[in-house]
């Protein structure tokens, strides 16, 4: 009998788990445990992400989104025939350059624009041969091409030497 009483007295020292007590108390009184700094940041990020997703959804629905457009990347840049034609023109001008003499090619070395080179190539024959070094470096304009036409009596080094040898 005495043993039973001892056992019951021991039971008086039994306590619930601390975490369980806190959670149960919070549940009963509707009190939330205050979060730490990280918790606050996380909460803000969650909120921001929710707004961003909502925004994207609204834009997707009302902004005329097309899956076709999205899945065809070439539509934006590769189907640009103007760029292709410009590159093709540059190749054609380069072909014309192969028909020039070596000394005439020097005149085109510093020309960057296709139009300038093209004008110079077309000018061949009108003022043949083209005078050596008559253009300012990297700056041949329509004006200087006209200038080339005006200097029609310019001769090459070979022609000059032939005349001097007579």
């Amino acid at each position, binding site marked *: 009998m005495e043993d039973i009483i001892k056992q019951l007295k021991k039971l008086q020292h039994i306590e619930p788990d601390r975490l369980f007590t806190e959670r149960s108390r919070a549940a009963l009184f509707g009190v939330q445990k205050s979060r730490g700094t990280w918790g606050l940041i996380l909460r803000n990020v969650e909120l921001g992400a929710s707004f961003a997703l909502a925004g994207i959804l609204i834009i997707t629905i009302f902004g*005329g*989104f*097309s*899956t*076709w*457009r999205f*899945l*065809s*990347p*070439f*539509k934006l*840049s*590769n*189907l640009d*025939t103007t760029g*292709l*034609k410009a*590159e*093709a023109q*540059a*190749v*054609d001008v*380069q*072909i014309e*350059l*192969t028909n020039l003499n*070596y*000394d005439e*090619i*020097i005149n085109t*070395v510093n020309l960057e624009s296709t139009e300038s080179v093209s004008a110079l190539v077309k000018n061949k024959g009108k003022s043949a041969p083209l*005078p*050596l*070094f*008559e253009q*300012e*470096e990297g700056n041949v304009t329509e004006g200087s091409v006209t200038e080339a036409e005006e*200097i029609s*009596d*310019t*001769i*090459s*080094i*070979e*022609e*000059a*030497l*032939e*005349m*001097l*040898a*007579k």
Partner: protein
Amino acid sequence: MKLKRVWVVGIFFVLIGLGIGNLARAEECILNKSVFEGLQQTGDPQSYLQKIRQELSLRKELISSVLDCAIEEASALKTSVDASSAPELQRIALEISTLLGNSMEYYKFQRKKIPDLGLEGSRDFASDILVWRKGNYIPVAKTASNIILWSKNQALMRAAKSRLDQIGGAVTILKLIENDRIQNKWKEANISFDAARLENKSAVQSFENFAHPEETLASIKRSLEYLSKTYEVLVNLVDEISKLTSKIQQPYENSF
């Protein structure tokens, strides 16, 4: 006050720029035919001896001008070769650059002989330089201009390759390769580009084998012609794709 200072500094630099520009113009080399034709009509001399002296003086002056032009020409070519050589042509470009430098030295050496020339000697002198130029300088100069052309072509080759890759990617993504017309054009573009690349490589071989400059130039030209053909096909191909995609795209766009 600050604005005024900026204006003054700006005008200063513009004036310096103009000065440099004029200096460059002064170095330009122009040989006028009329001056050389004047060799036969040296004014109205009082005596035969005076006529000889006058003609000799003019000849010496003109030979000097021609040699100056030749030096300038070789120098301009050398600068361009040094600047434009692609890694594939590094060795040959270096050799051509050295040969152009040697040519410049030759012209400078010949120039020193001018004061001692007589009338007949000046004719022979001009003739000898012409023969030397045709035999030695012109092949080197032509190779140099081929190097410049080839080097410039590499940017065009890269641009075409990039276009092929872009359009190829689009054709694959949209499964347009199943369309016969597209498939044929796509194959044609690739065949032309491969041929352009082959000729481009063949030009490098010609450079390395010291082939005749005309032979190298022919390879360069063929390479460019194939490249031009590639672009022609690509433009048609892109037109076809545009037509096709606009047909497919319309129902999609109408649905939104």
